[in-house]
């Protein structure tokens, strides 16, 4: 079973995403900011980290930086999501998929599947 770590400071969104991904058959971990995400990853390495961008404590860019700096996480796929215009983020993080909030659930599932399949490929 593939594991997805969802990171978002908005509790309602975090819980909704977790439920939907579980219904889709994924194992789901949750964290409400970057530091908590790193703690979860230390316990169980996910296949994909789906992270919000603006968060307290440790934000999305800082989390991505920490994950990329850790060799043990080199196989972990990364995906961002934000209410900020993600076109600019795609430019800053080439090759990394981003979801523009608000998004529909089908787009989310497609992107998650694509990111995980890309990792396998």
């Amino acid at each position, binding site marked *: 079973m593939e594991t997805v770590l969802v990171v978002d400071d908005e509790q309602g969104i975090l819980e909704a995403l977790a439920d939907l991904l579980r219904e889709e058959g994924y194992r789901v971990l949750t964290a409400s900011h970057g530091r908590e995400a790193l703690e979860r990853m230390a316990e169980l390495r996910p296949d994909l980290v789906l992270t919000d961008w603006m968060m307290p404590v440790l934000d999305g860019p800082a989390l991505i930086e920490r994950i990329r700096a850790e060799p043990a996480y080199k196989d972990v796929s990364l995906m961002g999501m934000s209410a900020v215009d993600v076109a600019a983020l795609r430019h800053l993080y080439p090759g990394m998929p981003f979801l523009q909030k*608000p998004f529909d659930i089908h787009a989310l599932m497609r992107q998650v599947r694509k990111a995980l399949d890309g990792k396998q490929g």
Partner: protein
Amino acid sequence: MSSSEQPARQDARVSTGVPGLDAVLGGGLVSSGVYIVVGEPGAGKTLFANQLCYHQGRAGARCLYVTLLAESHARMLANMRDMAFFDSALLPEGVYYVSGFRTLEEQGLPGLLELLRREVRNHNASILVLDGLVQAQEAAGSSRDFKKFIHELQVAAGLARFTALLLTSANGPAVHPEYTMVDGILELRERTQGVRSWRELQVRKFRGSATLHGVHAFRITSNGLEVFPRLESRVQRTPPPDPGAHRLHFGVPSLDALFPEGLAAGSTSLVLGPPGAGKTLLGSSLLEEGLKQGESCLYMGFYEPPNRLLGKVASAGIDLGGAMADGRLNFIWQPPSECILDVLADQLLSDVRRRNVKRVFVDGLSAMQQASPEPARINSFFAALTQELRCTGTTTLFGMETPRLFGPVLDVPMEVGPSAVAENLFFLRHVELEGRLRKLLSIFKMRDTHYDPTLREFVITSQGIEVLPPFSAAVDTLLTGLARHPGAGHF
């Protein structure tokens, strides 16, 4: 309570970016202050806070927007994207959104306070918005805990030099006892009367400087909030300039002959009359003459749109089209439904100041009166409006419709006596005489100048207005609208 009696402090101010609001606040929010913005859902609190953040972000400040149990950031930003002040380039550096709800749920007020302090520091924010203070209030174990939270936030604001806006929905009294320690309380509300509703802002408390007292209208458009300070609260206290010998005429020789010295510059006049009596043409004549004298003029109308008006006055030989085309004459046309009194005053006075307008014709004083849901306010409003116009040296003519076409009763549909509005009073009416309906003009009052009090018939031709010689001495009761020869019955 507003603190207008306190001497002003020289604190740095934070501009809100809301037109009109900084004026109400005596220059803006005081830097490092903690302010509560209270209002029911939909009152405009979130919009206001975002408008301030983007305004400050555009000026280089960093703003932190923390939500508790509020709409999602994505939904909030989706709502803001249509606003003129929104700028996606400011995200996330200039305006940063985080949620503090989970922290509040798990760690209570101490955890939330720590989050606020830390995030302000991490983002080097000078503006903090906490959207959902009522959640924090509900999470507090006691009133004392909540007061402690506010107090510690105030200390943090002073130390870290950030200005905080705490948004809360009205829950119980607008001003809770717990709020007394903050630096200011702004209340936003929507009021309804019948099917009509309007928005109001009131500064309930403000430390540090005088504010404009009372209730101020505001509106929400695609530009965000716009506040229209209550005219009476900002009226100039200085006496208007002495017009000296500067006098004005209508440019209608037979009319001007009734008061050869002319109207005093900066004076206000009122012309009363039923529909079709000639009020619009009289006002248009005053403006046309001003334009000939090289003066900027303003026509504020409520009923006839500009193209129809131009055609109407042109048929009476009054040409305003050229002046409107080249900007010497401005036409503010405001359909009377849903007008806001202070918006009308702002439109009028802004144009007067911007273009140094010297003559104004307000065609429809009744529409202005109806724009106020508070009849008791009309008297003081018009006193303030005419004072402002006098101070700018603007000569103003108000046109007001009387409801009866003709008859023995003279209705003056005003909440206040005409003298409160005008120094000069013209009266037009229809009169039935010798089987014809005629137009009658009389001057009831004219300050500081001699005038001919005789009743005159006036006619409108393709060459304009003409005032005829006095009626025959053998005709009286003209003002009743039913003239008769003495000793005879009504004609």
